[in-house]
């Protein structure tokens, strides 16, 4: 019985996160449009796009991995969700976070990337492979500040359990990592920009250079699966950052607000900055953000 309740809450949480991800994408794009003085899409447009993609009638496939790729990708997104505690203090909304700690989530991010890489590779399109190779190369550099930040907060809180990290930040904004460890937060937020794939780190999907990169060959249901994952992943990664640096959430409203603002940070930066070439972004990430991350650790060692 317990397991059924657990599964019920997990599914419910997944539905909420998915819907919030879609709505959030709509809101953000609406904001972008208004910022450039357009009316822009309706907030429901992501839903419609998703429905449309699932209602495409004909499809083609390049082989087995063409199926497995999106499945890996979505598993990656859903998996991170499954191992992520959502609401602090709530047994029901902590999903399967008892199975592993922060390390699990950090490494599980690769699962989806691998799937995308394999699926796109099976498509046989050179642009897919180019996109993947750029994405992977950039990701190595994006991970570096994040790793430093994680180590820094692990030193700070002496734990890698997300629940305990959130617990340590309770009791007001002065206890958030944002305040107690600003350098680590800064490093991780830069890394968040890369993880979200917005400018200046969006060379992977760069439509003008290599038509949309990895998912060039994907369409219809396959693309629908990828979009579903995107909606989940954006929210759940924002939730991860929220848990680590912004005090977590004690209820859904807080989660929704915080994840929105964290995600909006990446969009905001993306609106303002132009795009890096991939080697530029790597060089840049290996310099300033890495330095910030190292400082974040050094401060705790002193």
């Amino acid at each position, binding site marked *: 019985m317990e397991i059924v309740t657990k599964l019920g809450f997990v599914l419910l949480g997944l539905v909420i996160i998915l819907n919030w991800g879609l709505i959030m994408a709509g809101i953000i794009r609406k904001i972008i*449009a208004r910022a*450039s*003085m*357009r*009316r*822009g*899409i*309706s907030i429901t*447009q992501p839903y*419609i*796009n998703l*429905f*449309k993609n699932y*209602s*495409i*009638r*004909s*499809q*083609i496939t390049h082989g087995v991995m063409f199926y497995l790729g999106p499945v890996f990708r979505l598993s990656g997104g859903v998996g991170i969700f499954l191992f992520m505690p959502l609401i602090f203090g709530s047994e029901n909304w902590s999903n399967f976070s008892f199975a592993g700690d922060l390390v699990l989530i950090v490494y599980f991010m690769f699962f989806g990337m691998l799937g995308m890489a394999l699926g796109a590779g099976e498509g046989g399109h050179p642009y897919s492979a180019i996109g993947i190779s750029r994405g992977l190369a950039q990701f190595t550099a994006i991970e570096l500040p994040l790793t430093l930040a994680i180590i820094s907060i692990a030193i700070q809180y002496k734990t890698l359990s997300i629940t305990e990290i959130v617990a340590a930040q309770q009791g007001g904004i002065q206890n958030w990592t944002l305040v107690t460890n600003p350098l680590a937060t800064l490093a991780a937020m830069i890394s968040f920009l890369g993880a979200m794939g917005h400018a200046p780190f969006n060379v992977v999907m760069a*439509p*003008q250079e290599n*038509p*949309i990169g990895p*998912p*060039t*060959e*994907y*369409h*219809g249901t396959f*693309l629908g699966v990828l979009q579903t994952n995107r909606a989940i992943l954006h929210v759940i990664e924002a939730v991860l950052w929220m848990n680590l640096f912004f005090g977590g959430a004690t209820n859904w409203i807080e989660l929704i607000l915080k994840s929105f603002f964290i995600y909006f940070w990446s969009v905001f930066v993306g609106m303002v900055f132009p795009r890096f070439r991939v080697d530029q972004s790597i060089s840049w990430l290996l310099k300033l953000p890495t330095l910030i991350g190292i400082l974040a650790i050094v401060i705790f060692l002193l």
Partner: protein
Amino acid sequence: MNNTHDHNPEKTHQKFLAPENMPRTVIGPDGEEIHIDPLNDYFCSERPKVHEPANNKIIEKFMNWARAESLWVLGFGTGCGSIEIPPLLSPRFDAFRYGVAMRPTPRQSSVLIISGYLAVKTLKRAIRSYEQMQNPKFVIALGSCTINGGMYWDSYNTINRLDHYLPVDIYIAGCMPRPEAILAGFDQLKKRIKEGRAEGANEYARNFDWYKSNQKKIIKDWNMPDYNW
């Protein structure tokens, strides 16, 4: 120079077969001979299939609504009309609010805008792109050139009527039509889709032989299987 038209398309296509599409023999790692016929080995040569609408009326209506409200346009410009598309996305006209978006790959697009005259050479690419789009797919043709050849009506290298080569859903007249007209065209297309009348893809599949013979009549170096999957 022979002045006679060769009306046997098979022979013509053989004549214009590209060198890289010629059958060839390569030697495998263990010394075995491998015969390669690129057209058969590299390309899927299935004919297009007719995909009937869903039986359930309500579901079909819902799907058509979703398709109509999410028109993903392939970024493919022909002729002078391609200069009319970018203003469409600018704040002044803002086609996004109608669910219109540009996609860089035909696999993900559902609308092909033929934005002006089509030389034979361009037509070939337009057909390939169209065929690579997935089943509910719609064609909007801009300008008189696509309707009757426009000012190029007697050119030796420009087609006169697009609907002999691709199933056109909406013609937007003008030389060129302004963005407002194109927006109106999108509106009409939406109506057509919602009414379930925009079955161009199925029409293309049903009348595949006719379309193909028209296409092959002028595109002599097709160098592909009949349908470009």
